[in-house]
């Protein structure tokens, strides 16, 4: 029985190897027409210096909408499984790392180091995340990157401080997430009313395209990604009770 299973596994891996092998052995050169075209016209079509931002927020913004939808669905699914996990019984050991300051027994592994470092580094990481989010059109960065860094900053604040601020409240954060998705849908439809097509720039002047639309999309996507990942992480650490 064990030998038959082992042979089946070997056969599966061999078939996959043979299927992927032509990718390794091909020597056709990578095509350069797309790179040349984008080098000429990316700045005049969308107004962004960062070519990658111009692609996924300008030419292919539909993919970004789909990815935001995938993020929304997966975080909703994870949260619904998480909330039902701790409903049966509450064991004393799992409160040791949770965030409710009144219920926090002095767990032996929770030293002063976490509170001092995390609460002092939290605002700096939030500031850096906002910078990366807002300067996405002229330097590397953008909505996703800034959003994930802001989520890390919120997790730092939640781990470190003893206060209950609105920034670590899961109800407030999930409301911001839902509103951001609504704003994204509204921003994508607004191009239709100004004859620019779906996801088009609603303000198209003739002289030079200003990157305002890309900045707006960056802010909306950054808020959405940041708050949804922060809600998931805070709920995983046990802080999903009402404040």
């Amino acid at each position: 029985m064990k030998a038959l299973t082992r042979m089946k596994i070997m056969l599966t891996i061999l078939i996959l190897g043979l299927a992927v092998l032509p990718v390794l052995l091909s020597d056709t050169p990578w095509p350069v027409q797309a790179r040349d075209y984008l080098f000429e016209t990316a700045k005049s079509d969308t107004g962004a210096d960062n070519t990658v931002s111009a692609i996924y927020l300008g030419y292919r913004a539909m993919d970004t909408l789909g990815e935001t939808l995938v993020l929304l669905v997966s975080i909703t699914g994870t949260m619904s499984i998480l909330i039902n996990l701790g409903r049966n019984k509450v064991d004393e050991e799992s409160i040791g790392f949770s965030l409710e300051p009144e219920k926090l027994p002095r767990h032996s592994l929770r030293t002063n180091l976490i509170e001092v470092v995390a609460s002092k580094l939290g605002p700096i990481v939030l500031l850096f995340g906002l910078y990366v989010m807002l300067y996405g059109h002229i330097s590397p960065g953008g909505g996703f990157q800034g959003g994930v860094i802001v989520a890390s900053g919120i997790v730092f604040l939640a781990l470190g401080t003893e206060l209950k601020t609105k920034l670590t409240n899961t109800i407030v954060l999930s409301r911001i997430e839902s509103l951001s998705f609504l704003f994204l849908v509204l921003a994508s439809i607004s191009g239709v009313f100004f004859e620019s097509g779906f996801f088009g720039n609603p303000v198209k002047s003739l002289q030079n395209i200003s990157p305002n639309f890309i900045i707006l999309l960056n802010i909306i996507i950054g808020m959405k990604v940041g708050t949804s990942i922060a809600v998931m992480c805070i709920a995983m650490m046990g802080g999903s009770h009402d404040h």
Partner: protein
Amino acid sequence: MIMHILILGLILALGVFTLASRDLLHSVIALSAISMLSALLFTILRAPDVAITEAAVGAGVSTVIFVWAIRHTQRRDEEES
């Protein structure tokens, strides 16, 4: 060229260690190290956007969720026959 081969070889060795280790927490730390080396390789290959995303997501969010999952299940990979 030699840098690419060196970093890829290190990533491969860490990948084998991730799967062969009995302690799941060691595997999670190795997975986070793979993300960091990937981010370094992306910077060398002139892809700064992908490097920032991989560093923030791989070494930040992914490690947090894996450590949470190990905490609520077992930490050792026991052999049950």
